[in-house]
């Protein structure tokens, strides 16, 4: 029986969700990719998963997509248990996987036809949806093209169109814009935003901070299979970063970077104007976190540090990410 979910019940609820992969070789160690995560997806929101490579984002998406059995904890999707009702759940999901899975030999339109048939839709219904969806992702003029020669951005848009063929209640997007040029990314963002406006609930993973800031109402930062933090982009910045950041750079190989690092540590928590909360060292620069970046820069100069270049900017999600995972997101 399809379960009735009340309007404010979460669409997806995970409690202590785990994914353990069996060892690749006999006698090897099993690998824990998702190590007890809790989250709730609310109707109408865009929920993001951020995390470095191997954090367990795709593993989580695949469990939500009912194509990977859960190894532990609880997972409820649309009020149903994926172990029992995977087919019924999948009928109401749309999935954009990390890697495209289009039939390259077929035409654009035929890809949607086959996919619509998987959902048991009638041909006439599929034809109608196809026209709308290709219009929506700006591929209407390519309906009769073979998929193979399409650009990466077009293939991604086609995958998004395909995922919408069954008018899903939840759309799961695993790195929807990775590998796309800025123009193509903006088109995808715009379409995702329109879907949200139209009431579709979105779950997405991304490596792009700007994408997460623009699209996500709430997000989690994942690392080593766990959730390191959860909140809205603004919340997270307020909670885990200062208002401003001072970036300073030095000539490579001069040794200035190392000596500046030692001096800058002396500026942490002095309580004076320009005092810094903490610092992060990156290979090519040092980030100093302070509520007043200009004052921090003055303090830096005052302590005898002479950076080659400096920049004061507002804190972003990238800083939160760096703080929580100790890594930048650039692969």
């Amino acid at each position: 029986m399809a379960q009735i979910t009340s309007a404010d019940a979460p669409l997806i609820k995970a409690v202590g969700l785990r994914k353990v992969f069996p060892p690749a070789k006999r006698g090897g160690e099993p690998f824990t990719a998702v190590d007890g995560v809790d989250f709730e997806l609310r109707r109408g929101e865009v929920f993001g998963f951020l995390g470095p490579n191997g954090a367990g984002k795709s593993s989580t998406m695949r469990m939500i997509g009912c194509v990977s059995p859960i190894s532990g904890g609880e997972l409820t999707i649309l009020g149903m248990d994926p172990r029992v009702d995977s087919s019924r759940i999948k009928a109401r999901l749309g999935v954009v996987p990390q890697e495209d899975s289009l039939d390259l030999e077929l035409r654009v339109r035929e890809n949607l036809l086959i996919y619509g048939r998987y959902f048991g839709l009638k041909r006439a219904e599929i034809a109608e949806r196809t026209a709308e969806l290709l219009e929506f992702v700006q591929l209407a003029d390519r309906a009769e093209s073979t998929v193979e020669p399409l650009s990466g951005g077009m293939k991604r848009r086609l995958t998004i169109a395909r995922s919408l063929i069954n008018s899903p209640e939840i759309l799961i997007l695993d790195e929807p814009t990775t590998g796309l040029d800025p123009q193509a990314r903006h088109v995808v963002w715009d379409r995702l935003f329109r879907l949200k406006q139209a009431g579709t609930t979105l779950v997405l993973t991304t490596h792009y901070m700007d994408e997460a800031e623009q699209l996500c109402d709430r997000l989690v930062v994942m690392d080593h299979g766990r959730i390191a933090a959860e909140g809205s982009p603004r919340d997270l910045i307020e909670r885990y970063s200062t208002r401003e950041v001072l970036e300073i750079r030095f000539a490579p190989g001069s040794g200035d970077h190392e000596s500046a690092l030692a001096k800058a540590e002396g500026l942490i928590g002095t309580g004076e104007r320009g005092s810094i909360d903490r610092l992060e060292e990156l290979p090519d620069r040092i980030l100093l976190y302070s509520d007043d970046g200009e004052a921090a820069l003055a303090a830096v100069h005052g302590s005898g540090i002479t950076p080659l270049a400096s920049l004061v900017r507002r804190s972003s999600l990238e800083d939160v990410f760096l703080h929580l995972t100790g890594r930048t997101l650039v692969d």
Partner: protein
Amino acid sequence: MAVEMPQPAATPMAARELQGLLTNYRRTWRASIFSSVLAPLMSLVALGMSLGKIVDAGPGAHTFGTVDGQPVKYLLFLAPALMANTAMQTAIGESTYPVMSAMKWQKTYHAAIASPLSAFDVYLGHVMFIGLRVLMNCGIFLGTMALFGAVEAAGPAGIGPLLALPAAVLTGLAFAAPVVAWAVLQERDTGFSVVFRFVMIPLFLFSGTFFPVSQLPALIRPLAYVTPLWHGVDLCRGLALGSATAGSVLLHVGYLAAVVIAGLWYGARTFRRRLNP
């Protein structure tokens, strides 16, 4: 996981995968149909017609069995066996590279299991599709056999040669079910050429297609009896010539069906392991 509750008026899940593959086939059939029918056709012409004349006139003419006291002409002996071989070759061909492509290259299996289809539905749909491909190729081959005079009315109501067609499909399925199940596990295509060279060709040569298995050395004869192809060859031939007994039909159909079922059992596992890690 398969759906527990039937959805009225909806196409069964595996049939949806079958439809998808047929849609794909509509675009790609030209390349495949030629090669899969041409090879056995060449054997039919080269061996059945040319060599057949010599064999039928020689001292070994009785080697190929008798029907109603008359020795069976070599062409008639060979043709239904080549149909069983067409079934095997079509099935193995369709069960190797296309499966790897759907699993690893184009990932269309992954696309399908994100929909209501389960891994088993996808597997079953693919095996059903191969069954249809075998039916097509063997049907075309049977038509060509008739053109070359390799078909004579036999069996109940004279439809023996037609009965060989479903037998050929069953033979094809006995290869498709286990080979698809195995192919989905392959990381590289090297195993495929091993199957072509060390399974398909030896079976083609030694499963009673060109000469009765009784002519094989006693030591390797039992090997021929366990291969699905021998059962397929003997079944197709027996039906086409009208020489099959109820017992032999039952034995062959039972054996081939058992191989199909074992293949399906294995495929349910391998597909789940690969597609639902």
